């Protein structure tokens, strides 16, 4: 069975500092990995994805994520946090085949403090 773990419920970071939101996954097969962000009272907004190829993927709003197969991780990063990055972040995985549903982590709330 597929699963995603986001070990931190909350991440606090000062504005201008680098941020990392952690994600590990478990799948049988090759994974497709995604990060989504949710702002208050809004739906999930796609940030970036890893399908194949370069392990470092770049996405919207200056975010990037690194796929590490040996550690089964897909941590989300940003070199310099903004207050406007404060939101709820979800990591998700699907198996490499078809339009199967996403399996989500429980989410990590990021607070960027000015």
């Amino acid at each position: 069975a597929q699963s995603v773990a986001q070990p931190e419920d909350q991440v606090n970071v000062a504005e201008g500092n680098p941020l990392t939101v952690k994600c590990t996954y478990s799948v049988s097969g090759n994974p497709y990995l995604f990060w989504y962000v949710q702002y208050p009272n809004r739906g999930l907004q796609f940030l970036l994805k890893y399908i194949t190829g370069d392990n470092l993927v770049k996405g919207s709003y200056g975010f990037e994520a690194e796929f590490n197969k040996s550690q089964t991780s897909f941590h989300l990063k940003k070199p310099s946090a903004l207050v406007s990055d404060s939101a709820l972040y979800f990591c998700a995985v699907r198996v490499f085949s078809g339009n199967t549903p996403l399996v989500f982590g429980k989410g990590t709330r990021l607070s960027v403090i000015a």
Partner: protein
Amino acid sequence: EAGVTQFPSHSVIEKGQTVTLRCDPISGHDNLYWYRRVMGKEIKFLLHFVKESKQDESGMPNNRFLAERTGGTYSTLKVQPAELEDSGVYFCASSPGTGGNQPQHFGDGTRLSIL
């Protein structure tokens, strides 16, 4: 292009009543998914339509939930009768028909509160 639209944005009903949620996917998207997030927990898959056919309904909690997608366009999710544990945010998502690497596009969700 217009995004995924969900209606209503918020619904408050009493236990035992019926509620119907609606989702309008992005035009041309064959795949339509329903998910639910109970407060503080993971977003859980409910079911998946490909056009008008149910591809996977393994996540539906029980037979009080009925989903339809007549004509392969918008979808409805009916809860009848509603129970307290049905409270949560119901998300709809859609994606194109080709390629599993396409991201799913989500609506803003319907917040359902059962009293």
